[in-house]
């Protein structure tokens, strides 16, 4: 190719766009040597390509649509008593029941309290799911695990049925321990000066309520919690013994999680008075007013639970990969990718017998993979095995479309004039766009649904199609034109 033409080619915006994207992708992938002299990149890998474990937990609870003839508050309170579990109102017509019941089991209870079951969804509300996510993240962070992800899978109906926890660098046993581990929660009472005495441990707390205002509507936030019978009498005798009932302000109550004070406040006058004469099971820890008070109430709720989740869970699925097997898979994927590219090049060469056509085709094809990998680095997507299969399929189908362009332009073996060339390129692009649209639409449901690991695969495949249509095919059209018209 003459120098002038070469220059023109690099000035063409389609080719320029491709080159710029390529450079950006390489920067995003950032291949470099780490401190140990090993070649690494910014790419992140899923749990089947590196050591790690995942757990998918199913919530033993349900969100139920309801109607009632009773006042809603009374209905909820009564239902909570008769079902012997926490019942939380999600919105005007939905309740979250934090224990596993079937719809048929619930119906008689609802009827007895003057209500009906309208809809039934196993799972928890989006708000509770958020709480679960926070609790799990806190637990995992406390363990100092390197790299962990907690995802609650919330459906379109705002009900979450599963939470998925992925932890890199741990095995199955460790993962189960981290998830199952509870913190040590303790209530202590101030005796004299800065010294405190032990009163209760977390096992005396039988339930923790969601943050609320007390009195209702006052803007004074806090968390209510319930003590066991024994806990309540221990609490009462400690309060009397250390003088908290007569002089609350000098004998504050402190709550500790794993030996860190998370809350400290005096007994209220009213509580101090009533504790003198009888034990109290229902307690309320107030945290202040406004958004700040509400936020602190949420934090305190998590701490009161000491790592216990608000709903019971069961393991719906789990898995782990060892370091050596992950490494093995990685090696296989790299071999497969390189061999696939060579094979494709070979088939193309067999057809066209012309290095000047084959070389740009293969290079464009490879550049598409580089751009996709760059995209994967930027969105910090964790590549897993299905994603890699998708990438290699992009390799195969990407070259298909380059074939369509080449054949369309080379129609009847004559190199066309620029005018005819543009017409033919446009026609080739029509075919490509329709084909691309079908792939996009086929992958769309997977990208929107939460089908476990397949979401990422679908997004990467769609991305591959878009990069192909928008960037690499037009650039290839320009390049092949220059080469052929020589």
């Amino acid at each position, binding site marked *: 190719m003459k120098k002038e033409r070469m220059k023109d080619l690099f000035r063409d915006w389609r080719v320029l766009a491709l080159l710029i994207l390529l450079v950006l992708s390489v920067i995003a992938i950032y291949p470099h040597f780490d401190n140990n002299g090993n070649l690494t990149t910014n790419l992140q890998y899923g749990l089947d390509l590196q050591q790690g474990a995942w757990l998918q937990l199913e919530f033993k609870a349900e969100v139920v649509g309801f109607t009632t003839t009773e006042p809603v508050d009374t209905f909820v309170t009564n239902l909570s008593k008769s079902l012997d579990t926490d019942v939380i109102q999600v919105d005007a017509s939905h309740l979250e029941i934090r224990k596993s019941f079937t719809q048929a089991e619930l119906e008689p209870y609802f009827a007895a309290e003057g209500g009906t079951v309208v809809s039934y969804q196993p799972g928890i509300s989006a708000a509770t799911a958020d709480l679960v996510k926070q609790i799990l993240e806190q637990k995992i962070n406390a363990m100092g695990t390197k790299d962990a992800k907690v995802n609650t899978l919330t459906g379109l109906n705002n009900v979450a049925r599963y939470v998925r926890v992925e932890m890199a660098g741990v095995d199955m046993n460790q993962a189960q321990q981290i998830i199952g581990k509870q913190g040590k929660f303790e209530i202590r009472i101030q005796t004299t000066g800065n010294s405190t005495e032990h009163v209760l441990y977390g096992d005396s707390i039988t339930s923790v309520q969601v943050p609320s205002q007390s009195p209702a509507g006052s803007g004074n936030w806090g968390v209510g919690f319930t003590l066991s019978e024994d806990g309540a009498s221990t609490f009462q005798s400690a309060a009397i013994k250390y003088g908290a009932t007569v002089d609350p302000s000098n004998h504050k109550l402190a709550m500790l999680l794993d030996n860190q004070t998370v809350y400290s406040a005096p007994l209220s006058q009213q509580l101090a008075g009533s504790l003198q004469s009888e034990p109290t099971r229902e307690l309320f820890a107030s945290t202040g007013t406004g958004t700040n008070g509400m936020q602190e109430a949420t934090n305190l709720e998590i701490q009161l639970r000491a790592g216990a989740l608000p709903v019971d869970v069961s393991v719906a699925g789990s898995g782990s990969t*060892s370091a050596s097997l992950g490494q093995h898979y990685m090696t296989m994927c790299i071999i497969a990718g390189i061999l696939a590219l060579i094979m494709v090049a070979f088939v193309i060469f067999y057809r066209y017998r012309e290095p000047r056509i084959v070389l740009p085709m293969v290079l464009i094809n490879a550049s598409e993979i580089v751009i996709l990998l760059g995209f994967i680095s930027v969105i910090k997507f964790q590549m897993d095995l299905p994603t890699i299969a998708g990438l290699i399929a992009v390799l195969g189908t990407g070259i298909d479309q380059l074939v369509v362009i080449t054949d369309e332009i080379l129609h009847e073996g004559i190199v066309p004039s620029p005018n005819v060339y543009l017409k033919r390129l446009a026609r080739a692009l029509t075919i490509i766009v329709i084909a691309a649209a079908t792939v996009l639409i086929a992958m769309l449901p997977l990208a929107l649904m939460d089908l476990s690991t397949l979401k990422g695969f679908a997004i990467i495949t769609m991305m591959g199609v878009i990069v192909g249509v928008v960037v690499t095919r037009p650039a290839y059209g320009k390049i092949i034109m220059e080469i052929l018209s020589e």
Partner: protein
Amino acid sequence: MGLFHYNIEKYSPKQLVIIPMVLLAISLVVLAFVTVTVGMPVKPGIDFSGGTAVTVITPDTSNQIQAIFAGYPLVSVSEGLNNGKFITFGTMSDAQYQSLTALVESKYPDAQINQIGESFGKTLQDQAFIALIIAFIGMAIVVFVSFRTFIPSCAVVLSAFADMAMTAAMMNIVGIQLSLGTTAALLMLIGYSVDSDILLTTRVLKRQGKLNDKLTGAFRTGIIMTSTTIAAVTVLLIVSWAGQVEVIEEISAVLLMGLIFDILNTWLTNVGILKWYVLKGGGK
């Protein structure tokens, strides 16, 4: 392409369509039979029915492995090259699963374990089914909107459907189960199998020239398209089989079968219907 010569002009539309239609009928019978026996058109793997899969690289033989896991609901042990073993178990209780993972970790510390509970599997299965249906309908809509002619659009959609049905039937015959990976492969097929159909239909309907020339030209381009994809997927299949990367092995096997059926359905089914449509005066 010099591999084989295929004279589309030699055959009448009826002759073209007869072989794939017989195959389609057989496939549908296979799918119906499997649906009656296991409740789904393709036998579900552990992703959908629940169960545990263990991948391990060990010189132990299948018999030794069976002896080790005698107390557990062992379903199958499959072998790859390089001592790779893929062991599957049926559903079991939480306690039994815990003891199994402990056993696996003590015997084979380098194993990969994956477990799916029964109800979670059911949820995944329902979603996968919905995804497949929506994807297929979506594809059909794109095709109809693009060509805006009834019969040629139907031909493309029918070819894609035949492709899926034959691939699914073949999965049953060669014993590949429906999993998350193979569902992904089937979804990919929906998108990719219409590539060559779209090329064919566009060339025949939107281009000037003699029908037979257009068909031959489309075939020349179309067959090389499918060949490149087949080349990439074959490499993937061989490497993943040799390296015992079960997920990729299944995906590539399904894609390979689908692409082979795609050649059949594009260059017999779709060509047959399109030729009949043009000959009777449709198109131009």
